[in-house]
């Protein structure tokens, strides 16, 4: 179905709406506040759309945007309605919408009209009252004072004989980011797990509104350190989409190489982590070693171990010549060979398989209900990959099939991650053939008029990242919104550990390996 046809089709539904197509695949539907639920239900039923997120814009009124994705054709449908002080709760219609609504409610101070779950999500007990950091009247640079004025958060409690709660975090024994896990256990069995995050709200979206577009890619990359390249790519894609610019194929292929390198080292770390958590130290060290090799390769070709400041709009911020090309080929070959040996070894070790098989299962139905995306969703049997549904750069030529598994346990996530690494090796090799000649470092001044808006969709190592941006005055953004993959995927973990024993939690957690920082933003 072409997007024009879709537009006509939606117009025929008979609601008082106004539709606009922007940037080729984005459909902006302005609707009335009272019709939201009805329209959404019809849309779900009729077009098989997926709910992907919800965010708020501030003009004179607040504008609530509901992002819907058409995974088959690669369209984004945005339902917009104006409101003064309340959000129409979609809880019960759109899955996980409570997360987005609670976030908007905390950051913009809007009321959730009729939702069941109205607890704070960003605000913690330590925050001062009546503060809404993303509103325009909250000044940039202003700090949230530690006044302990916010009401207490209510955890779900499991009350039975012999049941008790284990609170873990937000400060952990290992060096990891803050997150609070509240286990309700009976003996060693986990009856319920509630995760509380957002301990480090950095206000990235506010910062993005106050930084010049030419430096903004640096802020984007800091949303999540481990997916720097993917966030840089999201920024480049966004700017190029808004200003209708297309870079040449060599640069596109170079970007794919960087993105896939990032995927390799992240997934290598992930599977190393899975091995560490079952105490299987030999392969863990070897995977760690390979990941280090890739990191060093990244440093040699971009000057940053985390591929920072390499992908920029309109061009490339690095030189890519014959020397780098040979370096990539050589390192990839070494790593690939060793990688296959060690993977074979782990798959033949019975004690390892005993731990990972049938552990931490997220069923397909639950994964669907939680709107999970990325590797963890594909391990549960959801066949969705942004690289296939919304092909960017040269992925249209590369990505032919989707790696997925059926059961959705730790072992399946392990397998999908391995398949993704193998694919990444393949894509890097193909992309190298697509680079014609040398790529030279070329930076072009970004200057965009105000009032333009657009979306970028990127597959990061964690899943589907959707970024919305609207340009404002003075070559700055007026609003940037990140729908990060971890935001929805974190809740999958609470289902994965149900019925498992407490010592298996770190294993399940590692197989998910969701990001705290991109969730907290």
């Amino acid at each position, binding site marked *: 179905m072409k997007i024009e046809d879709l537009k006509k089709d939606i117009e025929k539904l008979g609601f008082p709406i106004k539709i606009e197509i922007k940037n080729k695949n984005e459909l902006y539907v302005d609707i009335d506040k009272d019709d939201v639920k009805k329209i959404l239900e019809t849309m779900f039923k009729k077009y098989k759309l997926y709910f992907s997120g919800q965010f708020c814009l501030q003009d004179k009124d607040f504008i609530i945007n509901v992002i819907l994705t058409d995974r088959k054709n690669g369209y984004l449908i945005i339902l917009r309605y104006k409101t003064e002080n309340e959000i129409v709760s979609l809880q019960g219609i759109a899955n996980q919408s409570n997360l987005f609504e609670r976030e908007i409610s905390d950051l913009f101070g809007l009321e959730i009209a009729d939702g069941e779950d109205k607890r704070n999500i960003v605000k913690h007990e330590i925050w001062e009252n009546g503060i809404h950091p993303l509103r325009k009247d909250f000044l940039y640079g202003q700090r949230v004072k530690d006044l302990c004025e916010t009401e207490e958060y209510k955890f779900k409690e499991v009350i039975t004989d012999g049941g008790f709660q*284990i*609170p*873990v975090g937000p400060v*952990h*024994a*290992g060096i990891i980011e803050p997150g609070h896990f509240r286990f309700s256990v009976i003996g*060693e069995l986990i009856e319920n797990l509630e995760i509380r995050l957002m301990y480090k709200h950095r206000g990235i979206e506010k910062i993005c509104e106050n930084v010049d577009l030419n430096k903004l890619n640096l802020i984007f990359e800091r949303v999540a350190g481990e997916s720097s390249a993917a966030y840089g790519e999201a920024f480049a894609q966004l700017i190029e989409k808004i200003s209708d610019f297309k870079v040449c194929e060599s640069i596109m292929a170079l970007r794919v190489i960087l993105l896939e390198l990032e995927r390799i080292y992240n997934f290598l770390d992930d599977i190393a982590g899975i*091995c*560490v*958590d*079952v*105490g*299987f*130290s*030999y392969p863990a*060290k*070897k995977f760690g*070693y390979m990941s280090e090799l890739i990191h060093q390769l990244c440093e040699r070709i971009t000057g940053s171990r985390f591929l920072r400041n390499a992908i920029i709009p309109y061009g490339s911020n690095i030189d890519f010549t014959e020397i780098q090309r040979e370096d990539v080929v050589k390192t990839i070959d070494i790593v690939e060979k060793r990688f296959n040996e060690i993977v074979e070894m782990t798959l033949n*070790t019975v*004690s*390892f398989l*005993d*731990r990972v098989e049938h552990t931490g299962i997220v069923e397909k139905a639950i994964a669907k209900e939680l709107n999970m995306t990325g590797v963890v969703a594909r391990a549960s049997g959801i066949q969705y990959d942004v690289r296939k549904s919304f092909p960017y750069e040269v992925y249209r030529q590369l990505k032919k099939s989707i790696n997925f598994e059926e059961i959705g346990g730790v072992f399946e996530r392990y397998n999908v991650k391995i398949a993704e690494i193998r694919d990444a090796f393949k894509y890097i090799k193909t992309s190298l053939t697509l680079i014609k000649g040398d790529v030279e470092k070329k930076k072009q001044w970004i200057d965009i008029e105000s009032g333009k808006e657009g979306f970028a969709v990127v597959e990061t190592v964690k899943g589907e990242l959707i970024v919305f941006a609207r340009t404002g005055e003075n070559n700055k953004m007026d609003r940037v919104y990140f729908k990060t993959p971890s935001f929805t995927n974190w809740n999958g973990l609470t289902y994965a550990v149900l019925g498992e*024993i*407490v*010592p*298996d*939690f*770190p294993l399940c957690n590692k197989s998910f390996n969701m990001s705290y920082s991109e969730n907290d933003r």
Partner: protein
Amino acid sequence: MIINIIQSMILIIAAPLFSGILKRIKAILRGYEGAPVLQPYFDIKKLLSKERVISKSSSFITTVGPIIILSAAILSAFLTPVFFTAGNELIGNMFILIFILSIIKFFNTLIGLDCACTFGGMGSSREMFIYMFAEPVVFLILAFVYFETKSFNIYKIAKLNAVRTDISSAHIVAAIAFLIWLIAENARMPVDNPETHLELTMVHEAMILDISGRDLAYIELASAIKLAIFLTIFINIFLPFGMAVSLSAAALIKAVILYLIKMLVFLLIIAIVEISIAKFRLFRVPELIAASFSFAIAAISMMYFS
């Protein structure tokens, strides 16, 4: 008499060295250099000079526990032959040795419960869960040893087995049973991962999570001594060939060298086992210990009915 004291002193002093060697072997097998073998000594020295922080909610157990643990470990070292045995010592009853070593476990568990931290309690409950299954096995092995040598005295057992030339299949089966019990008792892989510090999976480390400074040094030293003692007991019961039974210099030197070689071989075996398998799921540990039980029963039947 004096030689017994000397050999036990050597065992105590060398105990951290053995755990240092174990760590080093593991590091080398995994392909990196690792910390120097003397690192445990440096760690203990560092911890001894540190301030002692005690949780507010803890009682006198946490205050006296670590020192009791260390003294129990040192005491049991003096009840163990290392490379010399005359066979007529008055000390060395195996039951006393096993019970003194249980004191270490008992106080570790109490310390875990005492500091009122969730992880300590979890660690203690898991430790007791494993201990409950492992304890009967050691008595079966003792019964086997009694059938074999008609003695419960470890010095006598060591002497009798040191001069024995033939080796029965029951002996080997019992040795395997003892090895599994040793691994379970010392919180090694695949029962517990001594390297991890993930709050939720730890067993032994979880109990001592709230211990710091000097107390931690005592406990670390005690667990190093405990591992060395267990390995020494294993060597002296099941592989005591070459042990010095008379006080001649040549026999002593030979015994020391053989002891070191045997120790290194077992450290190597433990290291290889630890890096090449994954940790068991907690509720599968009883299966491992049941196998050990089965070995012990088989050994006894083979010994008694042959």
